[in-house]
């Protein structure tokens, strides 16, 4: 029966019928390769061999590079009845047992540790979890992914699920420059971990203020069994952690691919694995069944505050500072339902304020007093934050643009390519308003009567606008490094620069005004000194209207050599569907002596 099912699955999947395969042929079976984590050209490193170096993971000394030798060693060691190796490699055993039709000799029944683990591990549903980026935390900006394994089909029980996470293990003693280097370019060992999902809810939604997207996958019982059996094989196995491609998301794709090796998940070459794209890959390959949204604590507070009048907001703040405000006349005069909302906002605010650091007896006491007020007033329902468009529905993360315009009295044509990801005037659906993260954004331009020139290359350009209100006072910031052109004298010089600064932003409906202080260091051929430094300010306003995004901005810089630069601009972006946009920009750039005005119109196409 078992082999009939298997054959049926293989036939359905259009795969060759392996049931009669010889041991030799099995070494190229998709599932065998998935079990050994062999790179079949999906990423640049370690092609044609296993991603894993850890000798613990192999039964043959050259198993990492020789799938065939590993297969033979596995057959030899897993075949004997009651073999110890079976208990370390239950998924491999399961594979060989089925493929080679080994006699029924009790299988894994002697593996009591594994059996116990499987009994305690949930396994009824699997979800991919995407804690979205948090606006003001640069390191979270690409997001993260993990797997959630649910106990039972009871949706109410996800707090009791397990989280499977792949991450680097960082030791605390090194210096921080090394951290960043190793984090980006590898060198950190990566491991799978298995922790209560509620801890992840706390880490992301409660401590880091990241919304969480939960994508239920449609894995069958058989597929989940493969995944769990293999997970056991990965305990304490060391991987390399590479930030760009072999990261948290990629390793999860490998696990899901193992569960369903006939899927197309690993077919394309991946230069970098961005979590939002991982979700899209799963969506395209037909894995996603449903989507749930779990708002962060900060969003829950905002949703409560939105329901309060200005006077009630003041009361909530006062109540959060002193719970006895609940006995005062101003609070008592509110309708009972308003009292409930005010007290809940006060409690949410208190918790948000005190989410880090050691326990304070006084705060704990105040917190409980506020909950008592909440408890004795009638509960108002329906104050959950509105669910935004989910990240996989957003525009593509890569972009090409073509356009042209006028600079002064000369026309130009321009091509732009951006490797990643989103600027704050791109279609905001599926992204955070006021967050921009761009990497490797290049523009080349041909101006009338001139050669082809590099107009701009942003290596990195991150802007974060975190709106302030009465309850939250975050500091916005931006940082930008790369090449741009600057009018000095009568010529536009290519300058290598790095600039950035802190700022403040507010939100008024769909309009976000902001102001930054900024500092800039640059190197250009017009100035004698190697590095020119400048200080200045940038202020503007973003408007996220229904059919378009509009940005107005002015920037002024004062250089150490008394040079000055002013740059006011207006940019209009009109999305056309999900992956196209028309963008118009007018900008004036220059100093007190000379300035030029540029009009620029371009068509933007987003993909991948």
């Amino acid at each position, binding site marked *: 029966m078992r082999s009939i099912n298997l054959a049926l699955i293989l036939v359905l999947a259009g795969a060759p019928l392996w049931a009669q395969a010889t041991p030799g042929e099995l070494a190229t079976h998709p599932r065998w390769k998935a079990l050994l984590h062999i790179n079949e050209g999906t990423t640049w490193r370690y092609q044609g061999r296993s991603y894993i170096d850890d000798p613990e993971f192999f039964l043959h000394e050259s198993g990492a590079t020789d799938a065939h030798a590993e297969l033979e060693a596995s057959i030899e060691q897993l075949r004997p009845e009651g073999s110890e190796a079976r208990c370390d490699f239950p998924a491999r055993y399961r594979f060989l047992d089925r493929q080679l039709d080994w006699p029924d000799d009790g299988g894994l029944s002697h593996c009591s540790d594994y059996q116990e683990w499987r009994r305690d591990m949930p396994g009824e549903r699997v979800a991919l979890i995407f804690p979205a980026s948090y606006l003001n935390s640069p390191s979270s900006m690409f997001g993260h992914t993990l797997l959630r394994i649910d106990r039972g089909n009871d949706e109410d029980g996800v707090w009791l699920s397990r989280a499977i996470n*792949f991450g680097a293990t960082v030791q605390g003693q090194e210096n921080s420059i090394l951290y960043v280097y190793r984090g980006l370019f590898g060198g950190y060992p990566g491991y799978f971990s298995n922790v209560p999902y509620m801890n992840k809810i*706390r880490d992301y939604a409660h401590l880091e203020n990241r919304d969480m997207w939960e994508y239920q996958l449609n894995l069958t019982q058989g597929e989940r069994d493969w995944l769990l059996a293999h997970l056991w094989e990965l305990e*304490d196995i060391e991987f390399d952690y590479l930030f760009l491609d072999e990261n948290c998301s990629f390793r999860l794709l490998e696990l899901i691919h193992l569960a369903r090796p006939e899927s197309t998940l690993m077919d394309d070459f991946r230069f970098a694995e961005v979590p939002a794209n991982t979700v899209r890959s799963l969506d395209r390959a037909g894995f996603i069944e449903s989507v749930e949204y779990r708002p962060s604590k900060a969003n829950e507070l905002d949703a409560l505050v939105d329901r309060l009048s200005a006077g009630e907001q003041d009361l909530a703040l006062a109540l959060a500072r002193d719970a006895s405000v609940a006995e005062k006349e101003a609070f008592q005069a509110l309708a009972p339902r308003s009292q409930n909302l005010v007290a809940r906002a006060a409690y949410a605010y208190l918790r948000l304020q005190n989410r880090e650091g050691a326990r304070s007896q006084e705060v704990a006491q105040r917190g*409980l007093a506020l909950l*008592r007020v909440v408890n004795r007033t009638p509960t108002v329902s329906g104050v959950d934050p509105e669910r935004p468009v989910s990240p996989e529905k957003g525009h593509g993360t890569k972009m090409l643009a073509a356009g042209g315009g006028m600079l002064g009295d000369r026309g130009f044509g321009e091509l732009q390519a951006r490797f990643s990801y989103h600027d704050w005037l791109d279609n905001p659906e599926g992204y955070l308003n006021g967050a921009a993260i761009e990497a490797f954004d290049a523009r080349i331009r041909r101006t009338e009567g001139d050669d082809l020139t590099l107009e701009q290359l942003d290596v990195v350009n991150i802007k974060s606008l975190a709106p302030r209100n009465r309850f939250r006072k975050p500091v916005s910031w931006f940082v930008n490094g790369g090449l741009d052109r600057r009018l000095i004298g009568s010529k536009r010089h290519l300058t290598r620069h790095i600039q950035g600064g802190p700022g403040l932003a507010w939100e008024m409906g769909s309009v976000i005004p902001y102001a930054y202080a900024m500092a800039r260091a640059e190197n250009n051929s017009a100035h004698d000194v190697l590095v020119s430094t400048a200080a200045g300010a940038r202020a503007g306003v973003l408007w996220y209207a229904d059919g378009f995004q509009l940005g107005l901005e002015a920037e002024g810089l004062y250089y150490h050599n008394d040079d000055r630069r002013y740059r006011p601009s207006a940019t209009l972006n009109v999305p056309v569907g999900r992956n196209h946009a028309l963008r118009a920009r007018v900008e004036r750039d220059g100093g007190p002596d000379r300035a030029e005005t540029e009009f620029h119109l371009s068509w933007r196409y987003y993909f991948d």
Partner: protein
Amino acid sequence: MRKTLLAAALVATSFGAQASAPGGSGCGWGNMLFEGNNGMPMHLLATLVNGTSGNRTFGITSGTNGCDTSGALSYHGENMLAQAGVMEEVAQDMAVGDGEALTALSVSMGIPAEEREHFKKTMHENFSTIFPSEDVTAEEVMSNIQNVMNQDKQLASLS
């Protein structure tokens, strides 16, 4: 060998840890966590590579970040409450009368789906009895919940 050790840990803490005094070992009401000596660069990096600092967790060990993990308890409400930061969530849900943490608590206590609404309502009505002070431990909360259930004719048979 490593699997044996692991399994011992698994059996010991299917769902976390025994509660200890509030503040004492990092568990209990009011401990929002994230203390530690890591500092900002460390935290940024940990986020960047989605890593853990130092400790690796696999198996069904609890990973309670500061909570005592030595308790030998099975899948039960008290263990859930002992997870750092969870007691506040449950308290908040009880104060309001609904929420995921409270639902999960009822699931972990084995309360059947059709009784959960009544369970939540009863918890809501007895909030002050269940959380008499900010120094209450997970153990005490659990025993207060049991007492409240015992006095309710519908829930008495479930506790």
